[in-house]
């Protein structure tokens, strides 16, 4: 019994062993389409035999919908993965990441929509047990669909340190600890517990600046 894959198919739309044939174009009296205006010239076809049998066809790893996809860093399930089309090239597992909630722990989630060319101070909440410090700070930025690549950014300032940049995500962490000796992030720019004084970035605190002409939505989770 013959193998179907060995069947001579001459996969080229024609036969390369013969000369090409001319396909006549239309004209105003003999249109190719139903529209009776305009004319086209004839053209000569040349066949190139790309495969004689099915097994000769070169298999390429692509689909039409994802053919032009560029490599990405993407979060999939519990992994940060480097993906190219359907292939996972590398990944870092965050499945074992666990930030425990202790007896003294508080947390706060805030959602902020920032106007163009504006700055906001992150609300320091009331992390009294840790004197304004947090051990986990997660910030997600969502940009408008029509934002260009160079408009997808936010600046952030922490205490009295150089200004830094953020794209779509930022995660900062520290040790989980009660008391005054800390190894986290001080997000309280106030001197007083009741926050009646003016905020001073030298004391601590985080501010975000939107330098673009488009609004940005920030989702911020802080916990100590």
């Amino acid at each position, binding site marked *: 019994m013959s193998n179907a894959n060995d069947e001579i198919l001459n996969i080229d739309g024609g036969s390369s062993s013969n000369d090409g044939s001319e396909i006549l174009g239309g004209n105003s009296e003999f249109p190719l389409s139903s529209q009776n205006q305009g004319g086209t010239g004839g053209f000569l076809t040349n066949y190139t035999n790309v495969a004689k049998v099915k097994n000769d066809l070169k298999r390429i790893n692509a689909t039409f919908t994802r053919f032009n996809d560029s490599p990405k860093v*993407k979060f999939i399930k519990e992994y940060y993965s480097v993906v190219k089309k359907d292939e996972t090239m590398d990944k870092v597992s965050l499945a074992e990441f666990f*930030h425990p*909630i202790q007896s003294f722990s508080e947390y706060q989630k805030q959602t902020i929509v920032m106007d163009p060319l504006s700055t906001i101070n992150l609300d320091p909440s009331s992390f009294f047990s840790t004197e304004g410090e947090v051990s986990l700070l997660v910030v997600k930025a969502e940009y408008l669909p029509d934002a260009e690549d160079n408009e997808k950014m936010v600046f952030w300032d922490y205490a009295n*340190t150089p200004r830094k940049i953020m794209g779509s995500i930022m995660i900062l962490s*520290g040790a989980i600890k009660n008391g005054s000796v800390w190894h986290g992030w001080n997000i309280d720019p106030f001197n007083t517990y009741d926050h009646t004084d003016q905020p001073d970035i030298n004391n601590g605190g985080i501010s975000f600046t939107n*330098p673009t002409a488009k609004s940005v939505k920030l989702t911020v989770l802080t*916990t100590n």
Partner: protein
Amino acid sequence: MATRPIICPYVEDSGFRFNRGYLVLDTPTTNYPEKFIRFDDMFENITSYSKLKIRILPESCYLLSQTDIADNEGFVSFILAKTIFPEKTLETRKYLTWEYQGSVYNMGKLMVLSGINITDFSSESAGWNISQPGPVYEDGGIIFCNPHTDITITLEILIAR
């Protein structure tokens, strides 16, 4: 041969963890933890990347610099650093420090930084500069330091541009 004893009831703390594309608050009382932030709708287009695993000995430092991954200005757009501490380490001791452009910051178990290299309105480049510090690239690189005297820390790092 004896099998490992199973301790009941199974006790686990509440806390934040990643679960099926979300950052969730996991509690032992529910199978459906509360979702806080969605992660699986975010992605960064990249052209090159590098993954490293580093062991930092007690009271030692490591300079992270990947000039060849960075762009012409020495910048990258994505940095992920995950720490692995020895099993019995207390939560209060799970930290290290990182230094960037002369300022020192704390880090616990995870850090993710992002942001493209752009020229801002004062015409100064902004981004995450991890080029080899020297006369060509100033202020480049991130220095991770293990401040503990008795703990070796393993760092898993993913860098992309």
